[in-house]
């Protein structure tokens, strides 16, 4: 069959054409991606025999029971969830003015500069950035040094003495881990937020002012609600990335385990694949809960 005949064949049969386009990626998505995900989920319904350390291939909820009843495991979930929420809120607060400037005020070269500037850190190796941050945050690191020169060492010490989140230095405290998380995921919040704000027609802001709203009222009543889909999209990134990450908590911060580290340890050295699988279900469930709350608050109404 010639190319021309093939073209005619597919032009006359749009569904075949669609099938040709979609079948390869759907095969990949369906088998490799969703398939492995379900294989993982299935593992979580097995349990490990405590004497032989062998996986018992019979459906049971024992692993989940272990997950929700052992205080150490619950601590890990709560710690990770708390960090994810704090990181998401901080990212949203920092990203909003930047995204607003990028979408509404920056023009031409300035706009390009901001977009490149936001994405530039993502061109560098993730590990390099995490280890760089460990050095920056270390007791003799540049941040402590600058604060010392500015005579603000007392401020840092006071922060590090805070119960629960403090520690001997920034690099070995939850404050330091929080800073690194916010740094890492900030672009994932800024970009969707800027995209959402770019789509808001300027005439809506003019209409708001025209009807008597001061800039602060326009921001609260028009800009913020219309940025919500972008905030929701960005927060799904920051929230889920924090829930699943295991490198940052193992390089920077206090010694307490996070979900990602637990998955790593359980499937590796401990060899408890069912518990690792059960732990990896936790972020999925938390994201679902998060999305349904966001939906209830109308985050997706304007889509």
């Amino acid at each position: 069959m010639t190319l021309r005949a093939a073209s005619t064949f597919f032009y006359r049969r749009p569904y075949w054409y669609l099938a040709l386009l979609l079948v390869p990626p759907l095969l990949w998505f369906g088998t490799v991606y969703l398939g492995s995900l379900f294989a993982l989920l299935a593992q979580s319904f097995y349990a490990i025999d405590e004497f032989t350390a062998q996986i018992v291939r019979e459906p049971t909820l024992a692993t989940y029971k272990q997950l929700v009843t052992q205080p150490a495991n619950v601590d890990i979930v709560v710690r990770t969830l708390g960090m994810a929420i704090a990181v998401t809120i901080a990212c949203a607060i920092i990203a909003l003015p930047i995204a607003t400037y990028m979408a509404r005020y920056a023009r031409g070269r300035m706009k390009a500069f901001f977009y490149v500037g936001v994405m530039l850190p993502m061109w560098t190796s993730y590990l390099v950035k995490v280890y760089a941050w460990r050095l920056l945050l270390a007791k003799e690191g540049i941040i402590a040094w600058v604060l010392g020169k500015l005579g603000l060492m007392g401020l840092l010490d006071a922060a590090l003495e805070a119960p629960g989140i403090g520690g001997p230095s920034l690099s070995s405290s939850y404050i330091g881990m929080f800073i690194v998380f916010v740094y890492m995921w900030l672009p994932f919040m800024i970009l969707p937020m800027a995209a959402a704000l770019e789509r808001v027609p300027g005439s809506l802001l003019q209409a708001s002012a025209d009807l008597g709203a001061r800039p602060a009222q326009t921001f609260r009543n028009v800009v913020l609600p219309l940025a919500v889909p972008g905030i929701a999209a960005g927060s799904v990134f920051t929230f889920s990335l924090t829930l699943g990450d295991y490198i940052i908590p193992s390089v920077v911060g206090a010694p307490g385990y996070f979900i990602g580290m637990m998955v790593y340890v359980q499937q590796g050295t401990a060899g408890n694949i069912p518990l690792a699988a059960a732990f990896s279900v936790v972020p999925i469930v938390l994201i679902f809960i998060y999305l349904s709350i966001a939906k209830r608050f109308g985050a997706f109404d304007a889509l």
Partner: protein
Amino acid sequence: MTAAIEFRGVSRVFGDVRAVDDVSFAIEPGEFFAMLGPSGSGKTSCLRLVAGFDSPDRGQVLLEGQDVSSVPPYERNVNTVFQDYALFPHMTVLENVAYGPRVRGVDSATRAQRAREMLDLVQLGAQGERRPAQLSGGQRQRVALARALINQPKVLLLDEPLGALDLKLREEMQIELKSLQRRLGITFVYVTHDQGEALSMADRVAVFNKGKIEQLAAPRELYTRPGTSFVARFVGSANVADGPLAQAISGSAQPFAIRAENIAVHLESAPPPVGETIAAGQVVAVQYHGAASRWQVKLDAGEVWSALITEEESRSLNGIGVGTRVRLSWPREAAVTLRS
């Protein structure tokens, strides 16, 4: 009486472009004032200066005698109907209309009541709970109108409000807007590029071109006595003779205009009409419009003029088609002298 709006030597420059170039005019209270011009002529820039979205680089904008050049839009007693309606997509129709009172601190029961009254005024009383996206273009336009009128502004600015509607709806809305303006008695400033809209609705029309007002007059005067060749062409679609063409036809370089309906078409073989001005040419197109036909004639001097011929006259010219040589004639008094 203090003018509702006054421009005193106002200029607004964007880079190299003089969007508004030393413009002065005054609009009376209660007037229906149209700003007419092609895109980029400065009419919308002037509207933005009245609304407060922009400030003049030079000159003053006065609202009821007060210089408002540096007053922000939210402190002006002026409201706008936007070209794209600019309805808030995340609010219901009722919330959209109630937005003005809401940001001015009116309590929720009162503002809902007033919003319902405004929706009744634009015959959308039943649509309050819907979202703007669920409405038709004409309905959105009415919501935008209700939202702009709820603050009881002294001046309502309309920026090509009917541009997105189809012809029939546009004509209905023209009549409705005009009667609404009469009933409410507030000043309307209406920006449009459609000369038919401006002529049929406005008390006075300012014709904009390249940042300046070419002519400011009542519609009838604008149509019958255009002051410049731009106004003659843009408002009346008139035939304009300037420079060499005027010289060739009338023997004087003074430019003049003749409207298409004042021109008669004759076969070149027929005896030339007596006592009328004559120009010879060749028919290049005939457009049939029902009650009348528009004949495009390429004059020997090079310009293409058009003549509007009634159905009756067309019949008597039977046999003339594209390519036929003809004479155009018009009574001397039909020629309108233009400023050169």
